[in-house]
């Protein structure tokens, strides 16, 4: 046995011992008495020990070097499961597998028993999680700050095609990953009133009185960079009542009321709001957002003050990224702390605030741009409203100086919308308070400049910049698709794990018959896995030789799952009515959640399920088509679906998707994209080449022009194309809702309405043509696999390592380091 082999055996032995020790001393049981979840906990604790050592070493190193640190504030961090990812990044997955085998257990089963940390809805939260992985891998001092929701995003069940929501009490069994830090808890005041007074020197001194107090208790989740040389943390805050009970109420004999008050305080971090839910005006959501901001800023300032005596250095040591507007109150909170508590002048504080903060915009959808009614903000955060008004007053003075009396311009740029009631525009607050405003793909950033905030762009052009999103290849290839990862590494080495551009070397193998056959085998095995999941969850037999046509993402009108269904219906009706065979057998795979209050999205789920039910039961179609809506889409399910996809559906109405990251994950796993010129699809197209992607549909400029000129004529499309007519008519015919007549009649009206914002009928024919082309190409196996290889090979740009490096260089001023092994 050589030295390396001995070390490997030692590593296995060490892990095995550590697992046994945790079973005995942390869980108080012998290994053989552990439940599956207990086994997961014992393994996770053994892994956490290793991370803890490295986290302390990382912190020690940073403390000595005193580098600038980044704090990433996000209302969502969509972490998913952690065990497999941590094992991969620490490089001990094989040792752990062997150790568990020695103990008679299976690593994959144990990994599978970990509940997802579903602390996010979709792209925004998952992006935050990918960034943390990249920051740690690159050795850049960067930390996430978020909320420790007791209930993550709801669990989705499908009952007769209808979505049912179930609570996701993910913390109930206790998570081994979190380390409580009650000693670093902080006070969070809310509500109250302003008492206008004068200070000792006769100056105006507004005092924030009669607030209620919450306590923010931090829980740290450790984040291991690849290779385990840097381990950072994600700090998640739970709300606690400032006292166990209000003793006065308790003493007065009203025990239940005292308990109720305590529960009300702790409700703040109880539940994650589903996106697309109507949150405007919801006091609890505002309280949640402020709670995150107050805890994070307090902690950031505390850390800074440990090593620095003057706030003049603050922005050279601290960068804060505001992930969308949810943490935009950071602008007012940092100003409040600097001015009220640290006695800085307004001008000094404002300079520091602007130099420290940067804001990422994630959406152009008007309904998703946050505004808070002034009376509500005044009720919850009276001092912050004063500060916002003062920021606005000073800002509008600047604007007025160059506006030649253009009052309409002032009204548009104001932080306050003069509606009834008045509203605070959080995006404007974030823009005014930040030195950098970025979009998340090139087209999105251009839309920010030209449509969302053109006047701000003209005012501060240097502040606007693009940072196209990325994904971490450690999770989205190395961990989720070990077969493909191994195949790639066997050909080009493992450098791609930390430098995704190295995948370019695969281009040379794109036409290599041997490599093609291997890739085909890998994809086939992944499809067999997914076919098993589909069968187990839906009792649908999916043929692994069929084209797996995949659309997995939140269900939303702009993402146009409906257009996908219209193609399926067209294929089906052509098959059974025209006897026209599809170009290729397909398995249509859908997954995604609809916001509980979003009726249209829930109807789309019902439609997919009903169309699936009709097709899947029709023996005439059984050889050619299957439709599967897999319930409860989440990170761990995505990890099973993405490696098995052949075709990636990225078909949003052009100009609506900020970036998308599912498009990147699918392409990295060897799926070919069918998509519109929207979000990051455009940049994917530039990278992979138009011959390796199926592009269709109206471009964003045309969509805008049609909207502006009101020139959309859906009836003309309907009348011109008999296939389209047949599909649209099917919605009013009860073909797909025989037991619930007229259920989908609204779709008939909706797509024929000239106000259909998503132009389903305009894009239908080009989409069908692109699908036909995709089907024909899939039949040419060599050509298809070559396309898949080139998609993988050209995904280098879409690593979150690249994204984070750009943020660090151009916005944060944070540097990476290569720590010692």
């Amino acid at each position, binding site marked *: 046995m050589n030295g390396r082999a001995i070390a490997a055996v030692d590593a296995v032995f060490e892990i095995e011992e550590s697992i046994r020790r945790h079973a005995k001393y942390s869980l108080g049981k012998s290994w053989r008495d552990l439940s599956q979840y207990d086994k997961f906990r014992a393994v996770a604790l053994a892994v956490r020990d290793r991370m803890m050592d490295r986290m302390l070493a990382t912190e020690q190193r940073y403390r000595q070097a005193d580098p600038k640190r980044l704090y990433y504030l996000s209302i969502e961090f969509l972490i998913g499961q952690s065990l497999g990812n941590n094992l991969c990044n620490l490089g001990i997955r094989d040792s752990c597998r062997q150790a568990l085998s020695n103990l008679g257990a299976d690593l994959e089963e144990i990994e599978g028993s970990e509940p997802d940390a579903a602390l996010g809805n979709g792209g925004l939260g998952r992006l935050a999680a990918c960034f943390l992985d990249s920051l740690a891998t690159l050795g850049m001092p960067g930390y996430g700050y978020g909320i420790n929701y007791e209930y993550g995003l709801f669990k989705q069940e499908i009952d007769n095609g209808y979505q049912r929501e179930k609570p996701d009490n993910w913390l109930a069994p206790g998570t081994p990953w979190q380390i409580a830090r009650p000693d670093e808890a902080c*006070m969070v*005041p809310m509500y*109250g009133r302003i*008492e206008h*007074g*004068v*200070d*000792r020197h006769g*100056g105006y*001194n*507004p*005092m*924030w*009185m*009669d*607030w*209620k*107090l919450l306590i923010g208790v931090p829980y740290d989740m450790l984040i291991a960079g690849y290779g385990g040389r840097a381990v950072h943390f994600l700090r998640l805050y739970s709300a606690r009542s*400032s*006292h166990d009970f*209000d*003793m*006065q109420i308790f*003493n007065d004999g009203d025990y239940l009321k005292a308990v109720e008050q305590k529960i009300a305080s702790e409700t703040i971090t109880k539940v994650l709001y589903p996106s697309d839910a109507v949150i405007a005006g919801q006091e609890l959501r505002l309280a949640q957002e402020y709670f995150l901001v107050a805890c994070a800023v307090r902690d950031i300032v505390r850390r800074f003050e440990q090593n620095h005596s003057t706030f003049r250095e603050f922005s050279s040591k601290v960068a804060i990224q505001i992930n969308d507007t949810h943490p935009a109150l950071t602008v007012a909170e940092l100003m409040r702390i600097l001015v*009220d*508590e*640290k*006695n800085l002048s307004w001008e000094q504080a404002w300079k520091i605030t602007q130099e420290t903060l940067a804001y990422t915009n994630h959406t152009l959808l008007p309904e998703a741009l946050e505004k808070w009614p002034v009376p509500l903000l005044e009720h919850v955060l009276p001092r912050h409203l004063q500060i916002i008004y003062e920021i606005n007053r000073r800002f509008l003075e600047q604007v007025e100086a160059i506006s030649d009396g253009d009052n309409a311009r002032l009204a548009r740029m104001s932080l306050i919308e003069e509606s009834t009631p008045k509203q605070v525009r959080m995006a404007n607050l974030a823009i005014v308070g930040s030195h950098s405003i970025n979009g998340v793909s090139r087209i999105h950033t251009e839309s920010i400049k030209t449509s969302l905030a053109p006047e701000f762009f003209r005012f501060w052009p240097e502040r606007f910049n693009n940072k196209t999103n990325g994904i971490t290849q450690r999770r989205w290839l190395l961990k989720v698709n070990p077969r493909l990862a191994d195949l790639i590494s066997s050909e080009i080495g493992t450098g791609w794990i930390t430098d995704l551009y190295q995948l370019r070397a695969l281009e040379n193998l794109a036409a290599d018959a041997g490599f093609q056959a291997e890739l085909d085998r890998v994809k086939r095995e992944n499809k067999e896995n997914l076919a098993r999941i589909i069968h187990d969850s839906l009792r649908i037999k999916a043929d692994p030789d069929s084209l797996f046509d995949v659309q997995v993402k939140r269900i939303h009108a702009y993402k146009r799952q409906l257009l996908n269904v219209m193609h399926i219906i067209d294929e089906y009706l052509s098959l059974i009515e025209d006897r026209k065979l599809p170009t290729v057998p397909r398995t249509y795979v859908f997954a995604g959640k609809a916001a509980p209050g979003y009726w249209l999205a829930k109807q789309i789920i019902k439609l997919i399920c009903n169309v699936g039910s009709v097709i899947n039961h029709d023996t005439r179609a059984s050889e050619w088509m299957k439709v599967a809506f897999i319930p409860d889409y989440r990170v761990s399910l995505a990890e099973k679906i993405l490696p098995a996809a052949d075709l990636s559906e990225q078909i949003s109405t052009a100009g609506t998707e900020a970036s998308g990251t599912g498009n990147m994950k699918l392409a990295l796993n060897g799926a070919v994209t069918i998509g519109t010129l929207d979000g990051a699809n455009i940049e994917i197209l530039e990278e992979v080449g138009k011959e390796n992607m199926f592009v269709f549909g109206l471009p964003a400029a045309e969509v805008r022009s049609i909207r502006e000129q009101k020139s959309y004529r859906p009836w003309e499309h309907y009348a011109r194309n008999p296939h389209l007519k047949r599909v649209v008519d099917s919605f009013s015919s009860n073909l797909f809702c025989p037991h619930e007549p007229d259920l989908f009649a609204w779709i008939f009206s909706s797509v024929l309405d000239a106000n259909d914002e998503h132009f389903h009928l305009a894009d239908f024919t080009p989409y069908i043509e692109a699908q036909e082309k995709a089907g024909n190409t899939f039949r040419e196996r060599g050509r298809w696999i070559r396309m898949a290889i080139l998609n993988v090979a050209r995904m280098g740009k879409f690593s979150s390592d690249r994204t984070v490096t750009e943020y660090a260089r151009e916005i944060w001023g944070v540097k990476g380091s290569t720590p010692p092994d």
Partner: protein
Amino acid sequence: MEIAVDKIGDVTVATIPVDELDASNAAELKRDIAPILEANTRLVIDLRPLQFVDSSGLGAMLSCLRQLSAKGGDLKLCCLSKQVRAAFELVRMHRIFDIFGTRDEAIRAFQTQGTKAQ
């Protein structure tokens, strides 16, 4: 609440005897400190034992300051724990109170004022 009172020259030092000052005992403090405010014009409140104060407690302190100011007296605070100091800063009350690290510094401040006044 038993407030300890020390007389040092013409300065009175009152020590708040509780470690938490909140809605449950702020009214009690106001009631029990009232005679001390009545009888004195130069008062130091020593907050050494105090580890937690909420907005009701801060309100009580503000009320003390106002009562003394109304009759031409003055109030100084000393020995605030880090947490209590943070609560004062939070509401900008550190800008209206004279706050000192030690009891001696607070007393000395009165004496210096007195000298200046003379």
